[in-house]
């Protein structure tokens, strides 16, 4: 799995929700070099506020080995208020409160452990705001 440099280089996005806003309005997390809509290469660095809306979601009952112990767990595609699209695990939320259109906030959480001697991975998850 990931060694420390592979993990570290993603920290700005995963810990601090650092993103880029392109002239077309497209917001990207993680970094990219060209606006997929306008083809322009200029952008503004922004930090996402950490709130958004669920566009769709699923409850995963069969996970890969890294997430097996968490099943069943929910994952959603979220559009942040700035317009960034993010796939995130849902946490601290009852399944019955999940719906398309539900408001969420991002929280900082442990994502997984890479085996007995590997690094511990952190990042964002999202929870539904009741």
């Amino acid at each position, binding site marked *: 799995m990931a060694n420390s440099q592979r993990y570290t280089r993603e920290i700005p996005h995963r810990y601090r929700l650092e993103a880029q806003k392109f002239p077309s309005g497209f917001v990207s997390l*993680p970094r990219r070099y060209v606006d997929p809509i306008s083809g322009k290469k200029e952008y503004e660095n922004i930090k996402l506020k950490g709130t958004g809306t669920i*566009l*769709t979601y*699923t409850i995963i009952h*069969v996970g*890969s080995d890294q997430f097996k112990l968490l099943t*069943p767990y929910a994952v*959603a595609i979220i559009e942040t208020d700035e317009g960034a699209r993010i*796939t995130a695990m849902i946490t601290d939320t009852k399944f019955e409160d999940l719906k398309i259109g539900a408001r969420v906030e991002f929280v900082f959480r442990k994502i997984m452990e890479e085996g007995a001697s590997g690094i511990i991975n952190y990042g964002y998850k999202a929870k539904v705001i009741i």
Partner: protein
Amino acid sequence: MREVAIIGVGMTKFGELWDQSIRDMFAEAALKAMENAKVDRIDALYVGAMSSGLYTFQEHLGSLMADYIGQIGVPAARIESACSSGGQAMRVGYMDVASGMHDIVLVGGVEKMWDVEDGTFVLATASDQEYEAYNGVTFPGLYAMIARAYMERFGLTREELAQVPIKNHKHAVNNPNAQYPFEIDLKTVLNSSMVADPLRLMDCSPITDGAACVILCPVDRAKEFTDKFVKIRGVGAASGPIALHDHKDLTRLEAVNLAAQRAYKMAGCGPEDINFVEVHDCFSIAEIVVAEELGFFEYGKGGKAIAEGQATYGGKIVINPSGGLKAKGHPVGATGVAQIIEAYYQLTNQAGARQVPNARLGMTQNMGGSGGSCVVHILEGM
């Protein structure tokens, strides 16, 4: 560009092939195809495979396969585009023959999926590893999110969605190479275990071992080998966003539409001319969205049309006469080539009890990831 013919095909049975390694399966399919085409030498070899490294710790398949089918010396390489690796290998083989660079080209696809335990992890590498898989999403999970968005927007019911695998299993009954050649009913689908809500086990294509190969040559030379061949009329490929979340509309797979438009344009025909289509039904919702993108049904109406019997014999168009990925099996890298083989059987009137009557033009649609890549072929019987 030269016109390109398919002059021979060969495949293994699809299933849990405990006794065969990745090289055994490929050799079986390749040697059958060469025998079928009556060629003993090839000029080049392309093999599609999604993840032989993670599944069997074996990369460098071009060399391995050329070596094990007695063709050392030929240029040979692996083509990878996740689940559309086989279709992409076909396209490369097509370009190789059409360009005039080589005459007799073997195109194959292979995947040995039953040699590892954590296949869910391997399949998730076709998504955005750092920004989808890292956050716990699985492959069925991605299609489940498409399904939920589609069902909510267009009012497709769980029972209607179940008609896709029911129809495909019915078709597979007549396919001797299918992994699951038996019928299933609504109760079986709705009672199967939940994988990623709303998708259940019976919505998901299985884990499959298998290989499939075809032999290509210029149409001008096809008659030297056989009087039964199929012409490749159109080829279209396209890419889409790697991450599902970057699809503007989560109920669509735009790369499929783009690839289809290119194939239709090259073939000089439209969806109304196609007699049957092999589509990439990796999950039941995929068949619905793909059928819409290919132009067979209006957006939002494909699910109900398939549930009403419009995608089987006697309907508007036969979708997946082979049984599709769900019932025939889905050895990822082999699938795109196996779809071509089904089209070859149909267009040369060799499909037996699953023959689509008067089939003249057939289509195949092979897709990688959650719509990150797509290859469409249009084939004509000669």
